[in-house]
């Protein structure tokens, strides 16, 4: 790394420290893996923390059933090349099992429904720690998160009564049936993640780079047509050069107009943009100003 990126070493050291602390303090951790860039970076950091050993935890994908095929293909290829264990839990099955109601509207999100599947999986596998790629710069409720975030047996976050967290001494002791959400890249910004991907030459699914895609123009956003989202006769449908800045559900993640086909070009665009990551791409965060806080209180990560 060059001098101008040496802060990435500090962030990397901090994340590896947290991952090792998680492995040492918990009996059964899992790493939440979606095939998005933040969780891909987490896997990369875990390899740095634990190789030449196998990872001391499985990867866990809470599969909404609304994924981008590119992200799923990347997930399977990565897991195969690493020889690590992947557990896939289906939100679709939770919906059937509990007769859950999908969110209404044109671009439904299964973000809130994921929580049922996650909590069931935590219980079934007796996971006591789930490592996630959430960052404090993403969203204002996340800006309040601890590195080790203690959740009760309903998975609930209690933001008014968080444990003190001093220096980098992490207290992972919890009551039976409670669990901890671990956030190793809390202090990374979106730009840090991209610079790290470039510096460490980490592979990403193709949809992070500019490609042509058929999209519905919805207000000021571009939503790809897919098996989940069919255009209506009244829709304005365009074929645009786009890339994805975040990868969530196909139903509620917007694409960004872009011609950036290399990491350098993507990073240059992210430096220039005046719109936040979630604001530009997530249709489901715009429902209310406390959408994320409310989801987290219910057990979302």
């Amino acid at each position, binding site marked *: 790394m060059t001098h101008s990126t040496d802060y990435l070493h*500090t962030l990397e050291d901090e994340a590896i420290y947290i991952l*090792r602390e998680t492995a040492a303090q918990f009996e059964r951790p899992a790493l939440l893996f979606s095939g998005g860039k933040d969780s891909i970076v987490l896997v990369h950091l875990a390899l740095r923390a634990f190789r030449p*050993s196998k990872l001391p935890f499985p990867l866990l994908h809470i599969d909404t059933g609304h994924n981008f095929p590119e992200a799923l293909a990347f997930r399977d290829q990565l897991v195969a090349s690493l020889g690590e264990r992947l557990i896939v839990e289906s939100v679709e099955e939770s919906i059937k099992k509990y007769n859950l109601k999908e969110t209404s509207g044109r671009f439904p999100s299964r973000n809130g429904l994921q929580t049922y599947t996650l909590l069931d999986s935590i219980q079934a596998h007796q996971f006591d720690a789930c490592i996630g790629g959430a960052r404090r*710069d993403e969203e204002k409720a996340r800006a309040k998160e601890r590195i080790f975030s203690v959740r009760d047996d309903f998975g609930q976050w209690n933001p008014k009564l968080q*444990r*003190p967290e*001093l220096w980098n001494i992490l207290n992972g002791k*919890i009551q039976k049936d409670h669990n901890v959400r671990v956030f190793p890249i809390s*202090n990374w910004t979106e730009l840090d993640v991209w610079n790290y991907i470039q510096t460490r030459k980490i592979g990403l699914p193709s949809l992070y780079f500019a490609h042509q895609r058929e999209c519905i123009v919805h207000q000021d956003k571009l939503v790809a047509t897919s098996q989940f989202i069919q255009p209506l006769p009244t829709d304005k449908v365009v074929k645009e050069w786009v890339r994805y800045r975040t990868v969530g559900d196909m139903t509620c993640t917007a694409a960004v107009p872009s011609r950036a086909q290399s990491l350098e070009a993507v990073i240059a665009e992210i430096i220039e943009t005046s719109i936040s990551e979630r604001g530009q791409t997530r249709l489901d965060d715009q429902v209310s100003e*406390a959408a994320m806080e409310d989801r987290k209180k219910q057990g979302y990560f």
Partner: protein
Amino acid sequence: MNTLKFITAGNVDDGKSTLIGRLLYDSDSIHTDQLGLIQKQSKRQEGEVDLALITDGLRAEREQGITIDVAYKYFSTSKRKFIIADAPGHEQYTRNMITGASNADLIILLIDARKGITEQTKRHASIGALMGIKHAVVAINKMDLVGYNQNIFENIMADFENKKSNLSYTQITYIPLNALHGDNVVKKSTAMPWYTGEALLPFLESVVVDKATSNALRFQVQWVVRPHEAHWHDYRGYAGNVLSGTLRAGQAVRLWPSQITTHISKIERHQEEVLEAVMGQNVVLHLGNDLDASRGDTLTEAAALIQCSSQIESWLCWLDTDALQIGKTYLLQHRFRTVRVKVQTVLKTWDIKEWQFQESGNNLKMNDIAQVVLRTNQPLFYDAFAEVPSNGNAILIDETSYNTVAACMFL
């Protein structure tokens, strides 16, 4: 490019969140969509943005107009990256302020020019110094409400200077501000020509962080790397973080508590062999003589002195709603090693209003600060916090609630 981590502290209405909002806004670090949201929420008159809403992230905080827990904000300029911990001002939430202070290089103490130094200023200044922060900025805010009066600024400065002698800051910088309108935040204000120093942001961009630096080698084993595969049969590495000093391949070292001496046969960083590693870096060590070390074991230079005792004098910041109970067993987590501990006696408490010690009984309740004697069930291998901070700090944990109940800084 390096990163400066700073914390902002002050009274409930001194304008901390407004100051942070101003720093982010004037340095173009707020995304337009977030600004739109803030404008929508802002109950002020049209055109005026309530900058405090940028940092208050919880529903309850917005409802009450207060900060409950630390919010972390990130921004960068062409000169430096910054991490801001916006700390709560309410006394009730002091422990959250301590969480923010424990990872900060610098503290901004915000003072309302009309009110001068208050009990909370003193509390936060005490905590910052105690947690090892070396740099303080005393930011005297709301100068517009006192007519940008130089005397008022200088009186507060003199007041702080008179009282500060018991605090261990190495640098205190005084800046008159008006966060609401941006005077002396990013740019020098024309309203206060008498102020000859820098505006806040240029100061933060250039301040050189003074950390307690000891060259003593300290390393604790965090995780033993032992692949259970035939190919790696003989591999046994000790992963951990260099807490202080420099590790060198070939160097003679001593392991604690076994007190066995050996040498470092190999250092790996990211699976590549390196000849040395410095403070803050994660490495995997391989030791000579096929030793057996475990998580929490300490490694020093072979001839080094380290405090080794089960009776330890320490600063304690009490953080829990349940008061300290003398004689009750707690857990003490010293980085990667956890032992059982009792607080034997409270020696003296720190009077945060007077910035001096006072005699006290054995009572410590939430937000109290004291010097105590700890007795552990096994000896600790530690340093004074003032000398080697990363090997001189620990936390106390309640054995039944598992809450973190106190911060310890060894004397």
